[in-house]
């Protein structure tokens, strides 16, 4: 079992999110995060779904997504060079003594302070889901009041033409590319 990041382009029609969610629940696939937003074309939404699945399970998820009439195209970015980003807002308790430490940590994570009052700070942090998890971890001792995360969004690097066909009918991706974690993304931040 591993995390798989799938991108789905779907027609922007009422109920489409319900169809996707229903599919995942019915087939017993485990969604870790799901985000939806507009895509480059009008009338098309773009979903980023992170699922916990085996390689074989991921192909089934993909095939089942293609089966939905409103789904235009699905890409699995797991084994491709891809950027994955998430945004988090963290509201953390501060005292005059800890304030500067927290600000320093925020600086290390290239996070921005977006709200300040006498007892708390709200910090906006972007990066990979792992980075946000780590930021949360280091702030926990100071007392986190609230945290909100957007869920991952992802995009392939470069300009490879991606297949718009379900598994089993598309040609295999050329050669066996190495698993390509978002290494450069990590190097840029922490």
């Amino acid at each position, binding site marked *: 079992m591993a995390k798989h990041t799938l991108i789905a382009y779907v027609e922007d029609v009422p109920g489409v999110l319900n169809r996707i969610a229903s599919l995942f629940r019915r087939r017993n696939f485990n969604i870790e995060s799901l985000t939806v937003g507009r895509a480059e074309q009008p009338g098309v939404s773009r979903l980023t779904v992170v699922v916990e699945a085996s390689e074989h399970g991921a192909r089934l998820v993909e095939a089942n997504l*293609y089966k939905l009439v409103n789904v235009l195209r699905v890409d699995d970015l797991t084994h491709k060079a891809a950027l994955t980003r998430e945004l988090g807002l963290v509201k953390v308790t501060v005292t005059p003594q800890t304030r500067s430490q927290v600000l320093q940590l925020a600086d290390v994570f290239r996070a921005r302070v977006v709200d300040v009052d006498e007892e708390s700070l709200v910090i906006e942090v972007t990066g990979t889901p792992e980075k946000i998890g780590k930021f949360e971890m280091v702030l926990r001792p100071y007392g986190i009041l609230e945290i909100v995360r957007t869920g991952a969004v992802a995009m392939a690097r470069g300009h490879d033409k991606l297949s718009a066909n379900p598994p089993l009918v598309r040609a295999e991706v050329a050669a066996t590319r190495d698993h390509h974690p978002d290494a450069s993304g990590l190097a840029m931040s922490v």
Partner: protein
Amino acid sequence: MKKLTGAEIIWECLLREGVDVVFGYPGGAILPAYDAMTKYPQIHHVLVRHEQGATHMADGYARASGKVGVAIATSGPGATNMVTGIATAMMDSSPIVCITGQVGSKAIGTDAFQETDVTGVTLPVTKHNYLVTRPGDIARAIREAFYIAKSGRPGPVLVDITKDAQQLTAEFDWEGAAPKLPGYRPDLRALPSEYEKAVELINSAQRPVILAGQGIIKSGTTAQVLELADAARIPIAVTLLGLGGIPASSPLNLGMMGMHGEAWVNQAIQQADLLIALGMRFDDRVTGNLKTYAPHAKKIHVEIDPSEVNKNVHVDVALIGDLRDVLGEVLPKVKTNDRAVWWAKIAEMKGDSAVRDIQSLPDNGHLYAAHVINDLWRLTKDRDTIVVTDVGQHQMWEAQYYHHDQPRSLITSGGLGTMGFALPAAIGAKFACPEKDVWVVVGDGGFQMTMPELATAKQEKIKVNVAIINNQFLGMVRQWQEFFYDKRYAATPLTSPDFVKLAEAFGLKGVRVEKRGEVAPAVKETLKHDGTVVIDFTVEKEDTVFPMVPAGADLDKMIRRPKRDVMLEAGDDKEWEMPSSTLPNVFAEAKAEAAALAGANGKSARATAAKPAKKPNRAAAPQRAAKAAPKRAKPSRR
């Protein structure tokens, strides 16, 4: 361009889709559509007695004709009553379009009278569904619904239309309403490299078996599959829904596989080195224990729906596409081969079971369901007959003892196993094929779920012949209780009304049959009669479907037919053997069975029959053997 009301647009669209009959039930939210129906006498409306019946009728119509069946209901309860029929059609890939009324678009979400979120409720059991709130969108929704229902892997599509959309007017533009479905891919094709792999596997296989599913019937490729099987001498095993797709009389056809399939068919699958699955989906009822399923076999899966591939069984080659196209690619490249060794081995596995003909067994005064069905087959096989079965023991006996030679001559609920399916589906089938005889084979339990549809048959003046296999039990559940729950018959004994009087109350003819000699006269009389006839076959109460693979057990570890067959020798309690080994014990068992049959005295033969089958395997894998035998199951010997 014509301006029409939404209700009129519905019927204009149905006309243009070639619909001649719809099955439905009126109600508040669909009333505008029903009112407009009076302007379209070309389409016949069948008033059902329950909306579930409407969907089953549409389903039966679709399965018998290959066309799209149409069911209509009102909002709320009308639509929710359809859910069972929709799910049945979904599981068996049957093309139906359901049109439901919905409360006015302004009232949606207010919990208005008879409001239900029907698109939400039916979302997981439809191929696709639509909620239409404007009259101008109706034509496109219905056109797309028909297109989606019948293309690719067929399935049910529901169109929910608000009452105001039916009442308001819009311009009716049929051409402009052509389907626009950029994400829908019904015509996928495998890569050429996959065909090469498949052909290589077929040509090099020593012990191949074709698994023939319903896809053959849906794609109408019986001839091509037989051509493939004949050229390369590949034996064919058939799924329940595939029955009829390959003629039972073909020497290439081994018979039905799976839970209640014949033992030699399952053994052939388990010993095969190549399985060629054509339009079937490796349901748990045909695979048994997935861990031990066809362990030596490479697998080729020809399937139109990519999400079915590698779902249950991992396959070596997947040929995605329409069966007709795939066979067209593969057939010319398959080398002829007589595979004599493999056929000899299968003949050996068949042993004496294959030549046993239940017709030649002496009449012992008892009426067995298997006899009823076998007699029915003999009496109707020369007529153009469609048999529609319900779900349970009678369904399996029908599959075993009625030998279907024509595609679409058996209609049954395989995937969902919907009791109550048979009678309404048969009415639908009769509308599709009025020139054919339609027989309903149904249990006393399932019949009582949808029997009010007899009134539909009466009102429509159509003839379906209903054979109730009445054993006064929910027989299949009782059988499981006998095998796996120490004969504790919880809630399975069943008191039924007098079916003969019931038929008469519906204004139909009723006949009761209690002895074997009465079967043939009753069937002949039924065939002569003008209208629907209900025959109550009062059969042996605690009869059992053999052979059987217990749920989750290895496919070739079957509970075999009793050594002293109840049909051979009456008066003795049934005796059967729970399989306990994980290794194939074909030969030991076949030998033991032959010995048991040959031995005039049952007891001594029985004792030897049990031993050789078990001993070697216990030694080979003691702990796995223990696991394979369901704990509660004990052979009942009294």
